[in-house]
Each structure stands twice: as C-alpha cells, then as structure tokens.
C-alpha cells in the first residue's frame, strides 16, 4: 500500500468509526430526554467528529504528500513485542516479560553486540525491580515462580 493510499484509508476508517459510534447514540430509550439523556453530549461530539472526518477525506484527496515509507517489519515487530510485554507483565511478572521484550526490541533496532544486549535486557529490568520492589516497596508484578522477581 502506498503512503498516499495509507493516509486516505486511515481517513476513511476514521470517518467510518465515527459514523458507527454516532449510530449507537440513536434509538435508545432515553433519546428524547434532551440534556438529561446520557447520549446528548456524545451525539454532539460524534456529529462533530463525522463532519470533520468528511472534510479530512476531501483534504486527503486533494493533497499529495511526500512521506517516506516506514520500516514496516521493524515497527510491526516492536509494536507486537511491546503489546506482548504489556499484556504479559501482570501475568508472568515484570522481569520475565521485560527481558525478552528488550532482547527482541534491541535486536530489531539494529544492535548486535550480544554482551550489551544481554546486559541491558537483564540489567535494566532487574534494576527497576530492585528499585521498586525492594527499595521503594512499590511492588511491580512479580513472577509466579519467585517472590523476589
């Protein structure tokens, strides 16, 4: 997908999401309650969203931006690794989730020195766990295997 198409598709998705959400505000039991209705303000906001999204699509169709293509593989790996880290840190503990994330992210970002990668991937999460769990006593999630990490 070209960068230009990517921008137009994003604009279209924003319009469709806004319109879908706006449709949710109609047909509810209390839609006639005026300012008392829970949907009173969201309807105004979503109406505004849809109107501006339409303008945005027109602007995108007229404009021809020169934007560099992203490193798609690199950004996808970092995004997935970040999400996996964020979801798993409360289940397997901060340290066990952070160390593999750091290894994957550092390798993906082009770092190749195994000693530095291992040092940062283990050292930084370990230092954070030590600081928060054992010094500040503000516990980060720990693993199901040992209380101290």
């Amino acid at each position, binding site marked *: 997908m070209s960068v230009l198409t*990517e*921008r137009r598709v*994003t*604009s279209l998705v*924003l319009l469709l999401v*806004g319109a879908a959400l706006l449709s*949710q505000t109609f047909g509810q039991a209390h839609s006639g309650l*005026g*300012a*008392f209705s*829970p*949907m009173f*303000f*969201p309807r105004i*906001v*979503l109406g*505004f*969203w849809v109107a*501006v999204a339409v*303008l*945005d699509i027109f*602007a995108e169709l007229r404009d021809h*931006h020169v*934007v*560099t*293509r*992203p*490193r*798609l593989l*690199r*950004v996808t790996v*970092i*995004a997935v690794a*970040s*999400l996996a*880290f*964020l*979801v798993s*840190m*409360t*289940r397997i503990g*901060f340290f066990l989730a*952070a160390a593999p*994330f*750091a290894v994957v*992210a*550092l390798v*993906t*970002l*082009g*770092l190749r020195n195994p000693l530095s990668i291992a040092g*940062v991937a283990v050292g*930084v*999460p370990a230092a*954070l766990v030590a600081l*928060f769990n054992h010094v*500040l006593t*503000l516990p*980060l*999630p720990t693993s199901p295997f040992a209380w101290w990490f």
Partner: protein
Amino acid sequence: MIELLPQAASLIFTIEGIGVLVLGTMLGIILGALPGIGSTVAVAMILPFTLTMSQAPAILLLLAVYAGSVYGGSLSAILINTPGTPQSAATCLDGYPMAQRGEAGLALGWSTVASMIGGLTSAVVLLLAAPQLAALALNFGPIETFALILLGLTCIVSVSEGSLVKGLLAGGIGLFLGCVGGDPITGEARFTFGQFQLISGFNLLAVVIGVFALSEVLLRAASRDEADHGLVSFSGIVLPPLAAWRGRIKGLIKSVAIGNGIGILPGTGAATAAFISYAEAQRSSPNRKNFGKGEPDGLIASESANNAVTGGALVPTMALGIPGDAITAVMLATLTLHGVTPGIRLMADNPVLIAAIFSGFFVINLMLLPMGMLVAKGAAPLLRLREGYMLVLIVLLCAVGVYFVRGNPFDLLVMGVAGIIGFVLRRQGMPMAPLVIGMVLGPTLEISLRQGLIITDGSFGEFFRGHPIAVVLVALAIGMLSLPLIGAWRKKHAAPE
C-alpha cells in the same frame, strides 16, 4: 499569596523538599538533553516515582523535571545539533555553530544564564497572575465554565501543527474518549460495549503515555533516518563575563517578555515563543548579521523565551484548569492523580500548597544555573547513547508509570493500543495534543453544558442571557477560531500581488 510564603517555605525547605528539587532538576536536564524524550515524556516517565510522595514534594518534583527538561534540550541542541526538545530547535541555529568553533562551553554558559533568567521571570508571573485569574473565575457558574472550556478548546487551533482539520478531528476523538464510561449525571454506562473495565472510562495517563511516548518509540523505529550524534569537544560550562552582557540586556528583556506573554496564551507553546523571540532578536539586534553563525544574541533570545514560557503556561493550567499544550495537559492529569484538582476552586481550597508550588517553581529556576553547571559535563557522554537503548528504556519506564497509577492490567493494554493508534494517526499528520486536550476538557465541558441547559429548561436561546462573562468568553472563542481562517483568506488574496 505573598503572605502565605512563610508557610510555603516550611513545605519546600525540608530535606525531602530540597531533595526532590535537586533530583528533579537533575533528571529533567538529563532527560531533556536526550533527543526524542522531550518534556512531556520526561514528566510522564517520572510520574510513578511520585505516587508514594505527599502532594507538595510530588508536584515540585514534576515541576523540576518540567523546567529542567526545557533547559536540558539546549545541551543536545548545542553539542550535537539535535534539539532534545522541540522548544530548543531555535537554539541549534547559533548554539551549534559556536560549539563547532570550539566555544561549546561558552554557548552553554549563555544558554544556562538566559534559561535561568527566563524561568525566574516566569515564576514571578505565575505567582502574580494566577491568583488574579483564579479570583475572577470564582464567580463562575456552569454557563461561564462552559464558555471558558469552549475558549480553552480553541487552543486546539494553535496546537494543530500544519493541519487545522486534523487537529479538530483529533480534538473530536479526544472529546469522545472523555465520554466513554459512566454518564456524569445519570451514571449510566456509555460506549463500554459490555467491558466492565470501561465503566470508569479510559485512564487518562495510559492514553497520554500511549499517544505520546509509545507512539514516539514506534515512529522512531519506523524512521529510516539514522541518528548521527557527533559530539563536539566540551569540557564544561563557561559563564560569559559580565562585560559581554553589555548591549544584550535589552534583547534579553524583550525575549523574556515575549516568552511570558506567549506562555499565558493557551496552546502557543515554548517552541513558538523561542522562534518568535529569535525572529525579533534577528530583526532588532545590533549583531543581526552574525545570526546563524554562532551569535550569543540568538542563543539568549531562544533560551530565555522558551524557559519564560514554563511559568506562563502554568497560569491557565493552575488557575482555570485549562491545559495550554501537551506538557501542561500531562501536568494537569498528574495533579489530579495527586488529589489536586486544578481549576476555579484550586487557589481558594489549597492556598498554602499553591504558594509552595509557585515559590518552589522560583527555586527550581534559581537552581538551573548550579545544576546545569554540575550536570552538563556528566550528561554530555549520554548523548552518544544508541537510540535503541533509549527506546527500550522509554517503553519499560512508561509501562511502570501506567501500572503504578491503578495497578490495572487493562490500563497497560490501553496504553499499548493507544500507542499503536497514536503511531498511525501521527503518520497521518495528526497532532496528538488536541486529542489529549479534548479528553481532559471534555468531561467538564459536558457537565457544564448539561447543567446550564437544565437551568434554562433546555433552551439554547436563554443559555447566555444574563451571563455577560460567558458571552465575552464565547466571543473570544469565536475570534480565536476565526483567526486562522482570516489569515488564510488574507494570504490567498495577497498571493496574486
């Protein structure tokens, strides 16, 4: 406010108080110097460290990080020609050429003194202006509050870097995100789609950190530009001799006034102030021919103006609860997390705390000079840090920050998703500050509008009758919205000539 200073001093000048000011300023300088982190991310990263602190030290720590990071941005601007924060972009223009000819220490000396003076004046402005504004706002009912928030939302126009339509769209998305969860009047769930975690709405900080910090990490990962940080030789800050200030004081005063004036206007920001001040100095300085080649007047203009913005920007944030930009939006969220609700009642309900915050801000700016001299030399090698390490560190610290707010796994997921959506929208050219401003101001806008309509029996015609302050505020809002349109119209009609 002045009469509360002795009580305020008892909150600041404790071991904890001095400790957080020193530590916060130091961390702020270091984080501000690291390209890509910026003031907003720096404040968000430090937030978890404040959660166990009492109100005054916690808020002072964050203010110290804020002020320190604005100054810290000049270190990388001068030493590696890469502004650590957007507000230091103008500093590169004369700072780096000075560094290239072997005067890096002197360039940092000029920027340090100018930053300190700019920051100190802004602290005085904050101390004097915020209580006056808050006193005026004490008379506000729901209709005036609605008009005020509407005016606050118009700052979206000025923070919509490049595209007004995209800025407004981001603002609309932010307003909608503020609607998710329980209805503030009836308590009924809205847009939760059966997810009980959404009953209390999206966690503001998770969204803020996602759309600013995590999306920044993804943008940098996606970028094809490899950062080349060639550090010039630097052996410490050299303060400019007093005689060198001759002929430059007038320019300094002008830059400080520009910074303070722009700071108070919601949504204008330190980067704008720095460039306007630089342009004015370039127009009026006797050394204007040397601008861009390493002229101290250029450095003084940009650094004094961007630091002068810090206090000014806090005036509407603290007194009216209106964040002027992304940094003050994060500060606003942070204050709320610490049980301090910025806005109309803030000054009346917490006079001693506010006096402590304002006078602490003065002390922070006073400390920029010694802390800058102490930290700069040690921080310089950090500028050689590979980007990969920095990005991983940002993700880890942001996760810690979001986790500590409520300990809720759902917030971490929100942060991750907000980061990915933020990345897509920022690639689209959509600014993220309007989204946060919409999300912060949305709930108050909704409550005041609905309360106002209930008072007037649902009549929009009666809404503003008998509320002259609200009428003036709405007129100002319309004026603010019209300015870019008038500008565009004038530009279009001037073009054929």
